[in-house]
């Protein structure tokens, strides 16, 4: 997805920690559920540590030096789908079976969950293709429909291209609501501990909710967004040059305030009014 200046203001400076941390959480949850036991502990820790460090350095690159164009957007979608969605929800559904000692069903659950998420992703892409008349007789109809996000003479693309969907921000700033959720996520298991049979019972609710909610996101936002990024890359191939994120100028301004930016940042001016 294309990073907008609003999203960059809230969390671009913390992106190394966010990516590293998310890599840690997602891979650790995934590996420790699917490969439990003392035999795998060392391998699991090594893999998680490697993935976390990778996340930190990729996050640092994105924080200081990335152009945040379509390549970055495509990788962001793949990251969202394969790490955030698949690993977390597969771990959840696997834990339902693992915690009930039905070990034979664990991989079936992982496979089914993956299948559901990929099918909903494809369905979301299909839905967007129909909406943009991608399959119609006129070959370039979709280009006209995407034209409102694109500035062809300046070769710029608005971040709204990938976020003009329900449940996604269209220029407004999200004040960090994470603490509310974090407090809840510590106390919901506590309720399950007091009134049900321990914190593990919460998984029986969380796993289907995770899969269902991810499927919904895939249908309405992630799938269509991914399809638009793919179309954008196709357009770039036709044009012979990359489109530049409209907000990149402002993001560069923002980056100059980051810690050690003078050494880490590549201080290009960006494209203002099509001139360097």
């Amino acid at each position, binding site marked *: 997805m294309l990073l907008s200046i609003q999203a960059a203001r809230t969390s671009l400076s913390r992106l190394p920690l966010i990516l590293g941390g998310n890599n840690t*959480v997602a891979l650790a949850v995934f590996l420790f559920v699917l490969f439990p036991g003392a035999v795998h502990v060392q391998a699991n820790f090594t893999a998680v540590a490697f993935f976390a460090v990778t996340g930190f350095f990729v996050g640092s690159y994105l924080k200081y030096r990335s152009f945040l164009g379509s390549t970055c957007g495509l990788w962001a979608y793949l990251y969202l789908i394969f790490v955030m969605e698949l690993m977390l929800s597969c771990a959840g559904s696997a834990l339902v079976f693992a*915690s009930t000692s039905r070990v034979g069903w664990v991989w079936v659950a992982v496979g089914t969950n993956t299948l559901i998420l990929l099918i909903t992703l494809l369905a979301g892409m299909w839905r967007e293709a129909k909406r943009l008349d991608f399959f119609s007789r006129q070959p370039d109809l979709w280009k006209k429909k995407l034209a409102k996000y694109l500035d062809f003479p300046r070769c710029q693309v608005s971040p709204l291209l990938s976020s003009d969907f329900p449940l996604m921000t269209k220029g407004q700033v999200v004040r960090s609501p994470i603490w509310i959720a*974090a407090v809840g996520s*510590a106390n919901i298991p506590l309720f399950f501990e007091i009134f*049900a049979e321990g914190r593990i019972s919460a998984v029986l609710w*969380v796993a289907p909710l995770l899969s269902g909610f991810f499927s919904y996101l895939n249908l309405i936002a992630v799938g269509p967004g991914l399809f638009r990024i793919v179309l954008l890359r196709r357009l770039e191939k036709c044009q012979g040059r990359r489109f530049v994120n409209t907000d990149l100028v402002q993001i560069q301004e923002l980056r100059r305030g980051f810690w050690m930016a003078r050494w880490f940042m590549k201080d290009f001016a960006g494209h203002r009014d099509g001139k360097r």
Partner: protein
Amino acid sequence: MSKLNAFAQDEKSRMALQVQRELSDYQRAFPLSAHSVGSAGVCRAEGWNIAFQLLDGDFDLDEALARSLIAGAKVRSPSAVQASWMDQYLEGETPDVVGSKDRLMFELNHAVTGPGSIFGNAGALRQAAHARIEKATAEALRAAVIQVESGTVLSVKINEYMTLYNANKSGQGRPRPRIRISGLPIQVITPALGQSMRTAAMGMGANAVLRSTDMLKVQRLAGLAANSHWTGQAAFLTGKMGGGVLTFAPSAALDVYHSLERDLAGDLRFNRQKFVMASAKSQSGNLLGLAGGSLVGAGFAIAGFTAAPVILMALLGGVLVQAVWGWSGGADWVRAVAERALKH
């Protein structure tokens, strides 16, 4: 046997199995030696009452106990007991072949709830078989059984607590060995709550906690809430997970609650070690849940989602992280680390 009767039998053996499983879990978690609190009759918050009592009485020789004794004797000297009536008595009346399910049910039924058994309760039976009756006692008992069986003597003193005697004083028919026990100190483990409370478990318990002024009852209900063995029917829900500003205070309150113990004199005691260990277990999970939830939420926020999906994802992510932490043994590991740090 009518259907209803059969159903009652099944239910009885099922309950017996359940009680025995809970007890064995409990005793594995708290070994007897480590659990003897010194003063007699300390009521603990785990849902079981432990008391030291002196056992007096006259009992028929319990089948399960005797069978284990005879089996031990058989291994050592195959010819000694083989032809005895006790062998037939013990082996003959069982309904099914060894290893079958019916046989297991029958034996468990008699071992735990059999009316004539020496120790009518599974905990005491286990203790008698494993702790009190050592090898010497077993030898003495075996010898005594053989003596009484042969009819030569009417009673044999096995040790300072036990006397085996022949209850068939008429001299006709086969001898009937009974055992007289006087002043045998035993540890009695009984459920803190009755059978009816058990079925009412969670919902009723919570109401009773809020209304009850009787501290002892409250404490027992806290034990009920703490112990996941209680509603064993929902086996897929059982898992021993630990009990952390708004994130950490509720868990801390629950841990304090579980660390309060009341002795027989009625004094409340705050078990500090227990609190530290429980906190290490619960708060580590809360901390990780907080971190995991924030990270997943931040990830979705920077991806451009609005507040609703971000909150929901942070919530679900945090809960998932906590569940995996507890399930994979991380919480128990931290508790063990805290315990080691306290002991050294």
